[in-house]
C-alpha cells in the first residue's frame, strides 16, 4: 500500500514538473511569397549585354530574404532558349531582338513562383573602337554599338574577333578581347556580331604594323 502511495506521489510530481512553460509562437517565420526583384530598366537587356536577375522571399512576419541562389530559373517557353541563354539567374541574349518570359520557382511549387517578361533591345549599328596597333604586342579589342533605345555602349557579348594573320592570337577572357600581334605588315581585324544568324554584321579595321 505504501509503495502505491509513493508511486502515485512520484507520478504526480512528474506531472506537475512537466507543466512548465511552452513557447506558443513560431520562432522561424514561414514563407509567404516569392518575387523576382523589380528592374529599374523594366526588364530590358541590350542584345550584346547581359541581365542579372534576383529574387526575394517574403516571410509571414514581414521580413525578407535573398532567394536568388536557392530557386530555379527557367524560361517559360522551350522555344525561348533560341532567343536567350539562361545561366542560373543571368540572361544572355542570343538574337538581336525578341521577348522571353523568365520564371523563378522553388521546387516546382506552384504557389511559390514568379515570372517576368524580358525584352531584348536591338543593336542598330556598331563600330570598332580604334586602338594604337601600329606596333607588335598585346592590344585590347573593343567595339561599341548604338541601340534602338538611343544608348551607346560597349559590345560585350555576341561578338567574335579575327585577324587576317593566323599567327595573331586573339583571347577572350573576363569579357575582354585581346590580340597579340605577332610580326609586322598589314593587318585587317574583323569584328563579327551575331555570327550565323540573320542579324550577322561585320566591321573591319586595318593597321600597318611596323
Amino acid at each position, binding site marked *: 500500500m505504501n509503495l502505491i502511495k509513493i508511486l502515485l506521489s512520484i507520478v504526480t510530481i512528474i506531472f506537475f514538473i512537466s507543466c512548465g512553460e511552452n*513557447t506558443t509562437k513560431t520562432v522561424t517565420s514561414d514563407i509567404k511569397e516569392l518575387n523576382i526583384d523589380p528592374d529599374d530598366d523594366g526588364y530590358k537587356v541590350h542584345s550584346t549585354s547581359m541581365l542579372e536577375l534576383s529574387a526575394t522571399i517574403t516571410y509571414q512576419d514581414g521580413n525578407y530574404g535573398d*532567394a536568388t541562389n536557392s530557386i530555379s530559373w527557367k524560361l517559360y517557353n522551350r522555344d525561348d532558349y533560341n532567343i536567350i541563354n539562361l545561366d542560373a539567374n543571368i540572361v544572355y541574349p542570343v538574337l538581336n531582338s525578341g521577348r522571353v518570359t523568365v520564371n523563378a520557382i522553388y521546387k516546382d511549387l506552384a504557389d511559390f513562383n514568379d515570372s517576368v517578361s524580358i525584352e531584348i533591345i536591338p543593336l542598330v549599328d556598331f563600330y570598332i573602337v580604334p586602338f594604337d596597333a601600329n606596333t607588335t604586342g598585346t592590344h585590347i579589342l573593343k567595339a561599341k554599338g548604338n541601340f534602338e533605345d538611343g544608348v551607346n555602349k560597349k559590345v560585350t557579348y555576341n561578338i567574335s574577333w579575327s585577324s587576317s594573320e593566323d599567327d595573331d592570337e586573339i583571347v577572350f577572357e573576363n569579357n575582354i578581347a585581346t590580340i597579340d600581334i605577332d610580326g609586322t605588315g598589314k593587318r585587317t581585324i574583323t569584328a563579327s556580331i551575331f555570327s550565323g544568324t540573320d542579324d550577322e554584321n561585320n566591321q573591319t579595321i586595318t593597321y600597318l604594323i611596323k
Partner: protein
Amino acid sequence: MKKIILFLLLVSSLFGEAKVYLGSNYGSYEENFTNEIDAQSSTQVIGIKAGYGVREAYAVEIDLEYIDTQSKIFSSTPSSVSDGKKYGMNINFLKAFDFGIYILPYLKVGVGAGTMNIERTLQNRLYYGSYNVGSGIFIPLGDSYDLELGYNYKYTTYKSIETIAEKIMYESHVNIAYLGINVRF
C-alpha cells in the same frame, strides 16, 4: 584469427549471464533551445524499452519514446495549435553498480534519433538526433520486477528548417525525469 576468437570468447563470457528485460516508463520532458532562439517545451514522455546484458556489468538498452508536444516552435500554419507528436528511438549502454545496498544505481550513455510532425509550408516533418547521458536507480521488487527512477539529458540537434533563403538548424537541451517498471526474464 586467434585474436578474433579470443575477443569472441571474452564477449561471450561477458554476456554469459546476460538477461533480457523489458520496461515502460513515464516522465516529465523539459526542452530548452540554445541561445539562438528563446523557446521551450514542457510535456510528458512515455517510453518502452528492451534491455539485454548483465546490468551490474554492462547492458544495452533500446527504447522507443513518444512525446506529445504542447509547444508551437516550428509549426507555422494558422490551423496548427502546437507542433505535432514526436517519436524517437535511443540506444544506450548502461552500467549499474552493486554496492550491496538493495538498490542499483546506474549510469548510461547513448545516442538517439527521431522525428517530429510539424506544419510548415515546405515541411511536415522534422528529424533530429541526440547524444544522451543519464543516471538513476533500479529498485528491485521481487525476483523479476524492479522499479526505476531515472534522469536523462539529451543534447538534441534538429535537421534544418527550410526557409528558401537559408536552412536554419536548431539545437536544444532536453531534461527528462522518469519513473519506470521493468520486468526481467
